[in-house]
Structures are given as structure tokens and as C-alpha cells.
């Protein structure tokens, strides 16, 4: 098992290297004019060259890449060139991560608890009122574009419940609506999938046997059905929690939450290369770790899954 972990770790390093280098090269395909603002026409050639040189964009690409990795080895993620000129990337990103993570983790936990409960009950009482109501909710959340219902909730929810429109870290009342809005989609997703997996499980033969044996329904549900139904979902759990670091672009824009959502899109469009590279590095690491932890979690839940070559496995 340790060997498996080590192997995955090395693989991850290679992946990260490839991803960051590719992003680096892709960003350099964007036009040079994009590094300047509107006043580009009025700048002289000397000014343009001076600015590009200051941003480190005139060196040959392999030299730029080399510098980046050397600095990385020393723990320096680079300095922003456009988004916040001359400020180290860590200083720009660090204060924003906690906001995204707090909201994200709270919302994920809420979504898990509410969603799984809802899904389980929906599967138990399949075809009855609760199932229909739950289905209606899931369908609505999926059908109406989130950009629309989030704005709707913000405007009407705040006036209905007398809550502040914009997030303010000193006013606890302003934390409620964003967290709830963030979890709505998750509730629908988890409910839908756990219901599907449970319905599949409930049809299996061993459940018939358990019922024939006379086991109480509740025990069947919890010890057998849920546990098996949950396995495919376990894969996504670590990734879901870790990916909260990237924030939700819609919610954070609407409620003025100074998180990470939208940061990546923003810095890509403004061509702030050091920020893009640092963010991609962080998000990729998070994604890779999430995938890895998900596999491990899945194997823990279901002993039949063998990640490593054991007996019988190919």
C-alpha cells in the first residue's frame, strides 16, 4: 500500500509539472497587447518594451520557465504583474482562501447532510409524495440556470427576510443567505444520486434475502443499502471538500465575498501570468490530491475494490 501511495505521489509531481508548463506555454500564446490597457495606442515602442521586460516576458520561453521553477523551488510563487502590481502572489491569494473554504465547506456539509437525508427518504418512499416533492425540487434546481435563481434569491430573499444584500464579515446575518444559496445545488445533486444508487441496491438479491431473513427495514437500509450506495459517491467527497478552495464564481460575485471564485477567470482574461501559474498550481494540486483521496476512500468503503494487485485482481 505504501508503495502504491508513493507511486501515486510521484505521478502527481509529474502531472503537476506537465500541467503548469502547459498552462505557462498556453498563456504565452495570448497577444502582447493584452498586457496593456486601453492606452496602448499612445505608448511608444520603448515604453512597451520596457514594460514587457519588467514583466519578464521578453526572455525566451525556456528561460522564463526555468526562472519560474527555480523560484518555486525556493517557495516563491511569483509576483503579480497586472492584477496587483508588484505584490507577491501569496499575499494576494492568502487572505481570500479562508473565505472560500469556510463558505464552501459549510455549504458542502449542509448539502451532504440535507441531500443524503432527502435522497434516502426519497428512495425509501419511492413514488410517494415525498419522492415527488424531492424530485420536483431537484428538477427545478437543475432546470433553472443558477445565474438566474441565485440573483432572484438574493434580491427577494434579502427584502423578504430583511437581510443585508452584501456580505460583511462583521454582520453575521449577511453570512446566511450566501451559505444557503451555495448548498442548494449540492443538496439536489447528492439527493438525486444517492436515490438512484439506493434504488439500484434495493433491487438486488441480497436485500431480498435480508428481508426474507426478517431483518428490520431500518437495519437493512443503514447497514447494507446505504453503505453500498454510498461507495460511488465517496469518490467525489474529498474532491468536493478540497475544491471549495476555488470558490463559487456566481455567489461570490453577487454577495461581494472576497473569495477565490472568479479570480482565476479574471487573471486569465487580464493575462497576469504569475497569478495564473500560481493558481493553476494550487488548484491542480488540490484536484490531484482529491482524486487520490477519493480512490482511497472508495477502497476503504468497499473492500472488494482493490487498488493494488492483490489475489484475483489482474
Amino acid at each position: 500500500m505504501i508503495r502504491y501511495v508513493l507511486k501515486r505521489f510521484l505521478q502527481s509531481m509529474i502531472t503537476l509539472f506537465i500541467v503548469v508548463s502547459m498552462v505557462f506555454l498556453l498563456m504565452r500564446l495570448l497577444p502582447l497587447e493584452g498586457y496593456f490597457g486601453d492606452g496602448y495606442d499612445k505608448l511608444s515602442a520603448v515604453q512597451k518594451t520596457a514594460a514587457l521586460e519588467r514583466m519578464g516576458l521578453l526572455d525566451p520561453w525556456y528561460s522564463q520557465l526555468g526562472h519560474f521553477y527555480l523560484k518555486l523551488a525556493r517557495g516563491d510563487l511569483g509576483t503579480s504583474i497586472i492584477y496587483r502590481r508588484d505584490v507577491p502572489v501569496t499575499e494576494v491569494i492568502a487572505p481570500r482562501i479562508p473565505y472560500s473554504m469556510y463558505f464552501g465547506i459549510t455549504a458542502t456539509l449542509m448539502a451532504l447532510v440535507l441531500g443524503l437525508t432527502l435522497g434516502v427518504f426519497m428512495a425509501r418512499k419511492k413514488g410517494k409524495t415525498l419522492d415527488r416533492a424531492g424530485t420536483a425540487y431537484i428538477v427545478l434546481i437543475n432546470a433553472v440556470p443558477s445565474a438566474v435563481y441565485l440573483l432572484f434569491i438574493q434580491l427577494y430573499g434579502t427584502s423578504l427576510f430583511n437581510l443585508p444584500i452584501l456580505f460583511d464579515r462583521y454582520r453575521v446575518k449577511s453570512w446566511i443567505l450566501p451559505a444557503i444559496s451555495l448548498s442548494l445545488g449540492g443538496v439536489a445533486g447528492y439527493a438525486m444520486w444517492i436515490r438512484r444508487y439506493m434504488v439500484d441496491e434495493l433491487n438486488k438479491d441480497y436485500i431480498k434475502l435480508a428481508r426474507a431473513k426478517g431483518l428490520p427495514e431500518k437495519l437493512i437500509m443503514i447497514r447494507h443499502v446505504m453503505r453500498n450506495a454510498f461507495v460511488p459517491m465517496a469518490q467525489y467527497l474529498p474532491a468536493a471538500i478540497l475544491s471549495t478552495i476555488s470558490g463559487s464564481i456566481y455567489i461570490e460575485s453577487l454577495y461581494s465575498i472576497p473569495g477565490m471564485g472568479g479570480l482565476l477567470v479574471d487573471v486569465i482574461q487580464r493575462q497576469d501570468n504569475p497569478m495564473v501559474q500560481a493558481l493553476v498550481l494550487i488548484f491542480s494540486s488540490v484536484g490531484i490530491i482529491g482524486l487520490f483521496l477519493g480512490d482511497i476512500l472508495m477502497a476503504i468503503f468497499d473492500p472488494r475494490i482493490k487498488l493494488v494487485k492483490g489475489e484475483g485482481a489482474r
Partner: protein
Amino acid sequence: MKRSLFFCLATVLLFSAAIAGAAPKSEDFYSVYSGELTTLNYLVVAAENEHSVIANVIDGLVEYDKYGVLVPSLATDWSNSADGKTWTFTLRKGVKWVDTKGKDYAEVVAQDWVDAAKYLFDKKNASLTANIAYAVIKNAKPYFEGKLTDFSQVGVKALDKYTLQYTLEKPVPYFLSMLTYVCFLPVNGDFLAKAGARFGTDNKNILYNGAYIVDNFEPQVGRRLVRNDKYWDKDHVYIKRLNYKYNKEASTLGPELFLRGEISSVAIPSSLIDSWMKDSAKKAIVRPAETSSYTYFYAFNFNPNFEAQYEPDNWKVVVNNKNFREALFHALDRRAAMMTAEPYAPERRLQNTITPRNFVNAGGKDYVDMADLAKFAKTDSFSKALALDFKAKAMAELAGKAKFPVKVMMPYNAGSTDWTNRAQVVEQQLENLLGKDFIDILPVSFPATNFLGATRRKGNYALQECNWGPDYADPETYTDPFVTGSNYNWPEKAAGYAQANGKTTYENMVDAAKAEVVNIAKRYDLFAKAEAYFIGEAFVIPYAIGGGGFEASKLEPFSYPFAPFGMSYLKFKGQTVMQRPLSTEAYNKLKDTWESEREEALKKSKF
């Protein structure tokens, strides 16, 4: 004795009561914004977003008053030499640099401007406004480009602690107006050296000498500016605190926030203006917003460089025919086009000249009312009859030489919904009016990334909507896009305008105007003639000015520095936040009063 004392006391009391009543009271100012500052380093940035803060925290040598007249700021007096190349300024004494907590750091002295210039002209700092300054200051350009290494030869000197001297390359009549811009602001050399690369990265790494201090700066959360109690003119600063909150959706949520009383001022987006105007309660709090001096025009490209499928050779033939250009010039229904951006009262933003009204003024006469330009200023170019008339003439003259319908490639920025809509409106409108036998307009969408680089700058267009902003207060700035060396529409390549000296008629007219540096009225007159010629030959179709629209605001209008360009109008000095927003009627009344007062002030001014 007792009676006189009593009398004194009473007078003092009455006097102070009068003073207290006279000084305007103001609420604090609240606002939301969607574009975060990239830096507070005012010596390198060129964008208005950053300037809106800089204008309030750093003062320059001169500033504009509320009528647009230049008045002393940190310089109390100035003079220039006989040849116009040397300007000497006497500085105000006792002005202090303070830090973010309002503590004294040092006094503002002449050396501060020299230190600022040294930083500005150092290529390594990559200032985006250096070009504006080195265009006029002696030896600055060679120093910037590295050809000159001795800074003492550059035309900025501190003669003594309170005397500053600028030496220019050639006489520049509008030099004073340039001094209000970022590249001519002072900096404390000592502080700058200590801060190094971190200068301006946040509110603690900058010093203040202006009306406000940035006392709180949290990127992506908000900022707060408080009144500087050590400010030399603090009696004229009425708003105590300026509070800004960041919100990416500021334009969508703004109107709602204003209605809930959470912000002091908001621009009403054009999509909402109709419904606001229909609601009587909302209509009562809406007022027109001021237009800016940013100019928009439709340019004909004389240097076509686009794909063969759009027939560039054919375009090159037709664009050189004046009747063809005139046909399009008169056929464009600019009002219909403007409605895509400004559905309510689009006429406010239309203009018939390239240089806007209220930009410059000589002896009480506005520039656009001078020489032949006056008749263009008053006439709307849109005329169906004239358009069809010119169409007939053009088709007759070009029969056999050009292929009809002419393909007109018109790029637009797909990232802007307004512009995409406008492209469709213009296409259908022109084709319907002139007929599809004459032109076939082809709107081509380009992504927002490097839009101008892919279209206008490469000559990759036949007809395109372009814009230009002024760099200083002189009509010369509006000729910059059209002279040789620029990359707008290459009018120098138009056939049939070359004169004896190899240059085109227009350029010779512009050169003659530029040469006139002593008699300002004559200078403006010559520029007006050149611009009238340019429009008369239909090299471009003047379209609109920027700004405008409507706002709901509690800010008192016409009380802040009025300037035709630059960042003076971003200052909050002199403004108050009123209890209630103004309605359009009240606003218009104030505007009329202001305009007549301004006329008087301009006539009396020396500069």
C-alpha cells in the same frame, strides 16, 4: 467696558454661528465599485480606475476650479520665459506629506517634483504615462530611451526649496493643463527610496498631500478615504469620509442598493432607464449625468488590409471617392445607432465634430464655434436626401471602376453586447436606406482579447467605430490619431490630397496650427479650420461623446473641479452629499446657472 465686552462677545457668537451655518454640512459618501485597483503607484498607472483615488489624495501644482479655470494648488505663482520654453513655479509653503495615519512625514518641496520625474523617466519602472511628460520636457525622451545618462540635463530642476523650474523642448501653450495629470505629481524621494518596489502596493506604502487619506484598503473588499486634517485647503473639503465597497455585480445591484439607501450615487444602466422613467417615484430622483470628452467616430480605412473575401481592392477604389464617403456620411442614422447604448435621450451623446464642445475656449468663444467648424457643429449629418444624392453621384463616377454592391467589412467586439447590437442596427439601417445594390455591410465579430490589435491597428477593417481620449487641453490632441505615424485610418494614404511639400492638405493645415504658439485664439482658429476640412472631406463620420446617461445621485452637481480632460473631475473636493437626490428639473436649473457663471469666469481668466 462691560458693554463693549458684551458687544464683542455677541459679535463673535453671531459670527461663529454664521460661519457654522455657512460651511456646508455633508453626509458621508458610500459607493460600490466593480474594478479593483491594481496599485496606488501614481507614477506608473494610466487607467481612470486608479486615477479616481489618486486625484483625491495627491495634489499637483495647479488644479481646476468648478468653472474649468486653472487656479493655484501647490504652486502659488508661476511665470514663463519670453520664448515660452521655461516655466518657473513658486511653491506653497508649509504643505505636509502625511502617512496613512495622518502623521507628518516631511514638507512638500520642489525636489519632490524632480524626484518624481527621475522615477518616471527611469525606463525600468515602466511608467505608462511617461510618454505624455517626455513629449514636452527637454531631454526627457533621450534619457528615457537610455541615450542620455546624465539626469541633470533633463529639464526639471529645483532652483531652491520652494522654486521649481521646467524647461521644455519647444513652446507648449497648454503646458499648464498638463500639470494636473498623474505624470506631473510630486513624490517624496526619501520615502520612495525606502519603499522601493513596494511603493504604492497598498495604502501604507504611499504618502499623501491631498484632500483625503486612504485609511483602509482591502482589495476585493473595499476602501475608505478620510479627510486629511493637515490639508492646506481643508476648509473646502466637506465630505468627511468616502466609503467604497467592492462588488463584481455593482452595475446590476447598484440601482437596488441606491433605492435601499445603502449608496449615495449610482449610474442607471441603459437597460433599466426605461422602467425607471415610467415609474414616477423613480423618475423624480433621476438626473442626467455629465458627458466626458472621450470622442467616438466611424472611420473609413484608407489602408485596407483584410481578407480577400471582403474585397479590399474594391474598397480601396471606392473609399478614395469623395461622393461614396459622403453617401455613407449622410446615410448613417446616428441616433438609431446610439439608442443601443443610450435608449433615453440619445441626442445628448451625439456630436457633429471630433473635438467636443466645452473642451477648450479662447476668450469666451468655444472651440467648436470657431471658423468653418461652427456650421458642422450645428448640423446633424444624417440626411436621407443627401445620402441618396451622393449615392447616385458615386455610382455614376465609379461605374466600371468598382464592383457594386460594395462589401463593407465592419468589425465589432463580440464581448460587448451594446456594440454587437449596434453593429446589427447600423448594418440593417444603412442597407435599408442606401439599398443593397450599393453596399453590403458585413459585421464581423472579434473576441474582446486584443480586439483593437486584430482589427483597427492592423488596418483589418473597412468601416469601424473608433474612439479617442484627450491627453491635454488643446485641440492638437484630437489631431493625433489622424496624422502620419498613427494607426487609426491612414488618411495620408487617401488619393488626391498631396500638396507640393509631399504632405496632404490636412496635415499641412495641422502643422500650421501647431506652429502657432503665441496667439491662442488664432491657434484654435487654425485647428478648427483643419478639423472642418477633415470632416468636410468625410474622412470620418463624427458620432458621439462618452459619459452621459442618467444617474441617481445625492452628490451636489457643479461643485467639483470641472476639467475637459485628465482626472480633476474625479476629485471630491468642494462636493457635498445632500440629503436627497436631485431631480432632472432641479438639475437643469442648476446647470443653467452654472453655465452662465462659467462664461463669466472664462472671460475673466488669464489662462
